[in-house]
């Protein structure tokens, strides 16, 4: 049964994989840019979850002239908003990274910690 659900719900497998990969990168990588990439992957996993959950087989756009079944437009709209929020967060993060690199000349968190401890 587990195997069957894995095969038929492979989108969710992808979601879990993306969340895991993203989180692993955030925790494990000492490179700040890679951390931001990890954040992005993590967010993408969540976007995929929303879009998958909203999928209706043979569904039409919710316009009256179309025939039922309809697709709920809400998750798509939410994800558009979430993508905008995500992009601006990445922009802020990258701006901070540029500043950190300019000040310390490194992107490695461990090196950064040592440099700051010596300050």
């Amino acid at each position, binding site marked *: *049964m*587990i195997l*069957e*659900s894995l095969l*038929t*719900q492979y989108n*969710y497998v992808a*979601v879990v994989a993306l*969340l895991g990969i993203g*989180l692993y990168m*955030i925790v494990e990588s000492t490179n*700040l840019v890679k*951390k931001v990439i990890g*954040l992005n992957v*993590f*967010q993408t996993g*969540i976007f995929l*979850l*929303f879009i*998958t*959950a*909203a*999928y*209706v*087989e*043979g*569904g039409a756009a*919710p316009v*009256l002239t179309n025939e*039922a*079944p*309809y*697709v*709920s*437009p*809400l*998750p798509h709209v*939410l994800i558009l*908003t*979430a993508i905008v*929020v995500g992009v*601006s*967060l990445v922009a*802020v*993060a990258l701006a*901070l*990274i540029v*500043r*950190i690199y300019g*000040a*310390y000349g490194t992107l490695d968190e461990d090196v*950064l910690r040592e440099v*700051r401890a010596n*300050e």
Partner: protein
Amino acid sequence: MNQIVIAPLLVAVVAVVATLALGRRPALQRATSVAGAIVYAASVALLAWRVVLAPDAGPATYQSGGWPAPFGITLVADALSAFMLVLAATVGLWSVAVAVRVLDRENQRVFYHPLFHCMLLGVTGAFLTGDLFNLFVWFEVMLMASYVFVAFYGGAKHTAGAFRYLVPNVVGSAVMLLGIGGLYATVGTLNMADMARRLADPAAYGIDVAPVVGLSAFVLATFALKAGLVPFQFWVPSAYRAAPLPAAAMLAGVTKKVGIYAVIRLYFTVFAAAGLDGATLPGTGVGITGDSPLAFLGPVLLAMAVASIAVGGVGAVGRETVDELLAYSSIGQVGFIALPVALAASAPSGAVRRAAVAAALVYALHHALAKGLLFLSTATVRGATGTTRLSELGGLGQRSPVLSAAFLVGSLSLVGIPPLAGFFGKFLVFEVAARHFATVPTAAAAVPLAAALVGAVLTIVYITRTWIGGFWGTQTPQVGQATVDPVQVGLLAALAAVILAAGVAFDPVYRFATAAAEAALDRGAYVDLVDPAPGTTLLAAGTGAGGALGSSGGAARPDRAGERGAGTENGNRPADGGEGT
């Protein structure tokens, strides 16, 4: 006149735009910013009047864009929202006024004021919204401003602190989004009132309630992160130290409370409706104890609160600078706010629960005012002496008696000395903890009371240490050469007077807090307020299309796939109709 609900939001938006546009006219920009905060406070006062104080007072809603409740975004101003807004407006007003005086002119000119109002905008939206996803968006607005505040001084140290603040918060926001998505797929709505209605009668809407517990835990983790509760407290000290001190007053006083507010609003008003009798954890067959996600919240939040009180208190005792000490102190103090919330979640009766939530709200108000005053006083001290290190301060009491008196009022309120507001805050929290112990006299039930006692003792220790180190004793060279700005001192003295007034005239404050607690717990009133006529569709005369707009079609739920077997593609929600094949 329901338009008043949206007034604080509009004022904040206008203030953001105006201060941004006036970047080339610094003096005018500062004046506009202060005026914006004053108008904001006035609009909040008007809203509070309309919602709580007026003879014909009652909660109000605003359906943005004219879309009826479950479809559009609803703004709800009930007593709880009004209470939190009053708190935000008070701290915000003083924060911006002190910032104008204390911060370097050049620093202010860049983007301090637009950011400040942006943060206020996010906080206001979070307090007013009645839509779960909208809450997420307001959180992001607020956080985006706070990231920039932490990196504000632009030094390498501040930037690194901001990055460390940003990463956990982005993950937290993503987890919150995950929780919201799951809740939408499970319950089929994002409107909080509609969600409460559906959870109260899950069978009628074909909802499986069990996943709500886990999904609400995702949301809880994010709120705890924003509130800085243990184990999510690690970002607090470095962020507060890096931010400009007037902005730190806002961060500690107001934005932390947004997390607490969200816990109260979602768990008590929305999730408490979900009956879980006989539900089992998906796939395991293990029964879920308790009757709703609220029962699950109780012990978890209690553990967080007790740990926060301990970590914050112990951390604050050993600090060398005043701002760092205050940052650790706010971890502990938020624990004091979360403690009665946790006890309310496991309270046996409605009256006890209401008293506990009211205690949390009173403590939140007291902490916002006292910690705001302390951070702002520290800003003045740093502006005058150039340092906040306890070893370099000393004899401030002699140098500026009024500033010291204001700091003393804030400190004593934090310790809980009558007749200041803090006394009642602490008194009510202790009362709730003691009553909890009295109902079930076991060792475990004594933990909250013991934690509160230890926390109170630690507060006395670190406050005494600050007072002796900074204000008594002989004047250090830094203090001796300091010139204290009389305008700042006047502002601080006025805020100290507010704290004193809130303690002396405590009765109206308590009644406001009780009304707010009642609003948080009265689920039926909240639902009726937002959406009095269930089942309305956007196109009442349409051909069943309304259902399609109300809910996600055939949202396959991964968390149930294992339990029921895959391939159940039918959206088993009869009430929705017209979807799922």
